[in-house]
């Protein structure tokens, strides 16, 4: 059985948070879906609330402090990403966006990503398609076709909404698992590896 890592980014603010709840459901479904594909997954969760001040500091200093660096490295180094945010004012939360603002813009290129969002009512659900999906398109991530939205009514036990949420979670997790299984394990680029093109080549591109 081969192994892969899943990073989970949750931007929920309260404890317990419905955003984290959705993230956990997506995660266990993704782990299960990977197992069905012969892959054992390890999971690392990044709770952005714990990095709220680190993120603000990064905005002013331009670098991630040690705690935040660990979180960023977890996400960048993972084979797949599950990213879940509450919807605030018609879009992802500022905390969620700030995290992806401080990740290097090329660091998520090609990474399989499953998107999720939560809000008080289902009227916010298309924020997933109108706000979150374009953000990850910009980052050139490979986003699973199904993104999962959960409103308050979806958490009500036994109803139709709950069953629909379960099936969406399962479908999305399967899509993420297919993307992760179809790629070799992640190997983040090392900027300090010996350069692929020599300095002499760089010079030849310029004046003589």
């Amino acid at each position: 059985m081969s192994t892969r890592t899943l990073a989970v980014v949750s931007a929920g603010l309260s404890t317990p948070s419905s955003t984290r709840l959705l993230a956990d459901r997506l995660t266990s479904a993704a782990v299960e879906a990977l197992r069905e594909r012969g892959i054992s997954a390890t999971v690392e969760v990044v709770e952005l609330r714990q990095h709220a001040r680190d993120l603000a500091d990064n905005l002013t200093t331009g670098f991630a402090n040690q705690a935040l660096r660990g979180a960023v490295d977890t996400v960048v180094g993972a084979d797949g990403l599950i990213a879940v945010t509450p919807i605030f004012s018609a879009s992802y939360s500022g905390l969620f966006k700030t995290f992806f603002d401080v990740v290097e813009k090329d660091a998520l290129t090609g990474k399989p990503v499953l998107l999720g969002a939560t809000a008080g009512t289902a009227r916010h659900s298309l924020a997933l398609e109108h706000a979150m999906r374009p953000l990850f398109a910009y980052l050139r991530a490979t986003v699973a076709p199904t993104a999962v939205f959960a409103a308050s009514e979806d958490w009500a036990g036994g109803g139709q909404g709950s069953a629909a949420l379960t099936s969406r979670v399962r479908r999305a997790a399967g899509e993420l698992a297919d993307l992760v299984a179809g790629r070799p394990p992640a190997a983040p680029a090392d900027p300090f590896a010996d350069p692929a093109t020599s300095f002499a080549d760089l010079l030849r591109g310029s004046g003589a």
Partner: protein
Amino acid sequence: MQFGVFTVSDITTDPTTGRTPTEAERLKAVLAIAQKAEEVGLDVFALGEHHNPPFFSSSPTTTLAWIAARTTTLQLSTSTTLITTNDPVKIAEDYAMLQHLAEGRVDLMMGRGNTGPVYPWFGQDIRNGIELAVENYALLRRLWTEDVVDWSGRFRTPLQGFTSTPRPLDGVPPFVWHGSIRSPQIAEQAAYYGDGFFHNHIFWPKEHTQRMVEFYRRRYEHYGHGAADQAIVGLGGQVFMRRNSQDAVAEFRPYFDNAPVYGHGPSLEDFSRETPLTVGSPQQVIERTLGFRDYVGDYQRQLFLIDHAGLPLKTVLEQLDILGEEVVPVLRREFAALKPAHVPDAPTHAARVAAAGGKTDATVHAPADDVTGQVRDEVEVR
């Protein structure tokens, strides 16, 4: 090992008084700081170059020439010279000129500049930053090492039969450092030429400096200039000292909290932990600075930033006294005792001239009188 100070030439409101110095005041303060640096026994003064407020230092060679005339031993450098937006022809001329006037006490540090709007003011584009640094520096080197240059490139007018004057003092160009916070390509450039590499070592965690310097040293060896531990490394650093470390923290905190670049963000304590910033007693500064060697190896130049963020001149001069009396003598002794014999000293003009086999006069005499266009023979016959 050389010790000194570098300034970014910012004009910043003193947060404790609400007063903002004038350009004239800050310019004169920097002259006083440079002179004081020599007086207290430091080796190097480096001045930044900027072309937008809140900075005053648009023309470093003018300022450095004034300082050269008022000092005798101080090494004069830049932090940094904009290799991207300056015409390399003008850099070649200006710094060769300054080197003659300063009688060999000049070196310079190349930097790209990270302010987008500045580039178009000089006909360039920040997106070409690395390519500009590569092409312009290659031309600058040729202008200093070849008497007559034919050249064409992407970013400036071609040159045909061009001689940059004056020719380098004693036939040896000024030593060049390349400064970069986060671009491995610039460390690669420094390694390729066997030039020095300087890391600002202020704004980012030490792990980042360590990776950049390691990379530069490895590539320096790759290009055959010597062993990795013989590469020429310089570091910045930022300190504020008082006899009691609590006094240092209390006095510096408002300047830190409101500083350009990192102010209004992390606490002084957080930033001191995450970066090389040291605010405390002279002994704390000595210990922290000696620790730099643990992650960059034996290095050749240590510059401190001490005059930014609105700190008043009087305070800055006190910092220089502490550096000169209590800190640098200890650092000099301790670093020297630790340095193996095969690690080179900081480059100086005298040593470079000796390595080149002695002085040569490099003057290029024109074949024709530039004013009349007549060749010398005709002038003499008449």
